[in-house]
């Protein structure tokens, strides 16, 4: 894939850390909060940052849903999920940058590839350990994660270097009542909202969705209803991975640099979001992701971009100290 050409040169004039990729987001930062031009400008700036935070939060939501759904049905944190997101970003990028696909086709291709990847991961790495102690599956998950990262770093796969994504369309900023919003932000939010609605429909209006909900409550009881628990678990991995893939493609368009380790930090953030909202609870994942997006963006904009992650994870620790089951989590009641 892309074997014939040289990897793009590393940027010399910008320091790129492994997890940056937020260039366009913060490019227009104004250090004006404590400066002179307080007033309307500040408000507009804040709103602008809130919109940036929404964009980031919505992307985290797509990843967080996979964590929370998989946890729901198998009570396992799929630590390879962030790497599925990375594969999704790459497949999307290859789709519209190298194979000449229109963006929606690239998104769907990426979702399909990652759905299969998710199912395969579950079959190979988790299913044989279903009845083993939880720690075994956890270690297996970390193994899959590292495998995907380093396998994708191989020259004949994606290669270890950063790649610059050529956006399939120009970024356009619109000014609405002084607030700047870009076509990419609109695209991200509309796409994610659409997917959330589809997921909601699937879970609450279809047979497979109801089966997923019962499996997340009680495997044996679901079996006794005639639910094939193994296939429901596969479907869950497929859906979660497809959502992460969509998130990956959007991410590649919004923050257009990708590399095989790009999934680690968004993966961790999304996992944090899922835990923050209450792991296993779908609205919780979305809520947690939106909070994470805001905290991160606002911290970077108004405090310090170095503190961004520290504060985001600090909030997780605080919330868990007060509410160990997450914001929307139910306190476990003793079963009689």
């Amino acid at each position: 894939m892309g074997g014939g050409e040289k990897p793009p040169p590393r940027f010399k004039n910008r320091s790129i850390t492994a997890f940056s990729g937020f260039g366009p987001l913060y490019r227009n930062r104004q250090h004006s909060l404590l400066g002179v031009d307080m007033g309307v400008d500040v408000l507009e700036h804040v709103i602008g940052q809130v919109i940036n935070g929404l964009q980031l939060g919505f992307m985290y939501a797509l990843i967080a849903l996979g964590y929370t759904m998989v946890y729901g049905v198998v009570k396992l944190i799929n630590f390879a999920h962030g790497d599925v997101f990375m594969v999704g970003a790459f497949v999307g990028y290859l789709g519209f940058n190298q194979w000449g696909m229109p963006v929606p086709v690239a998104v769907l291709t990426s979702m399909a590839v990652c759905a299969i990847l998710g199912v395969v991961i579950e079959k190979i790495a988790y299913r044989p350990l279903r009845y083993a102690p939880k720690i075994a599956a956890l270690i297996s998950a970390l193994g899959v994660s590292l495998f995907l990262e380093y396998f994708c770093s191989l020259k004949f796969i994606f290669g270890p270097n950063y790649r610059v994504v050529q956006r399939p369309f120009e970024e356009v900023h619109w000014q609405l009542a002084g607030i700047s919003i870009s076509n990419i932000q609109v695209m991200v939010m509309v796409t994610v909202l659409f997917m959330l609605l589809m997921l909601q429909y699937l879970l609450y209006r279809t047979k497979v969705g109801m089966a997923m909900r019962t499996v997340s409550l009680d495997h044996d009881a679901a079996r006794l209803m005639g639910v094939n628990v193994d296939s429901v678990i596969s479907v869950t991995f497929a859906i979660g991975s497809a959502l992460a893939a969509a998130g990956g493609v959007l991410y590649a368009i919004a923050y257009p640099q990708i590399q095989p380790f790009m999934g680690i930090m968004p993966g961790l953030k999304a996992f944090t979001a899922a835990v923050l909202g209450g792991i296993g609870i779908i609205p919780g994942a979305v809520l947690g992701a939106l909070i994470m997006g805001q905290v991160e963006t606002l911290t970077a904009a108004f405090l310090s971009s170095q503190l961004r992650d520290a504060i985001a994870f600090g909030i997780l620790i605080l919330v868990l100290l007060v509410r160990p089951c997450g914001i929307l989590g139910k306190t476990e009641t003793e079963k009689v």
Partner: protein
Amino acid sequence: MLAVDNIQVFYGAIQALHGISFEVKEGEIVTLIGANGAGKSTTLRTISGLLRPKSGTVKFDGMDITRVPAHKIVKMGLAHVPEGRKIFPDLTVRENLIMGAYTRTDRTETAVTLEHVFQRFPRLKEREKQFAGTLSGGEQQMLAMGRGLMCKPKLLILDEPSMGLSPILVEDIFKIIKEINQLGTTILLVEQNAFMALQIAHRAYVLETGKVMLAGSAAELREDPKVRSAYLGDVVDIA
């Protein structure tokens, strides 16, 4: 209809069932009674495919279902209402019942069954849109039984339906079990409340530490001195 032949079941290294055999004929109510840990629930879980026996066979409707996965056994017409009810607390009462018909594809027929279940358990109709977790213990038991009936089973397996219920509710539940049976559903009933079970059952098996100790008609076992002292709370003639 159901023939269990010499099944041995292990939990890890611990043997729970030491070769249990019994049968249930069409139209019967058969009850398995016995103390805690006798292997009653294990037996039921093995029949419905949740556990695999190390040896022995389970035949249902003439077919060997020993190695058939649980979700396929349901489709063959065997419904298992598990111990502790195992209703889905985060689903509504209606959704729980619909889940009971998961294996059915005939929508209109299923709607008819749902109406029948609502007729049998009017309380469930009243609480149709409520989350099942908010129901009282008795209502949850009715929901579990209703859910079991939703697949129109040939054989209905009930594990401790009276557990945790008030004496009046227990009477109600047993009355309903008898009615379901009279309408043509064969029933395999596991109970700690041997007194009630032996009143409605045709035949009974007494389980002790993973073995069948006694078998006979319910009427015979009601008169059996060992059964009376061990399971029916009879305190006479210890000397």
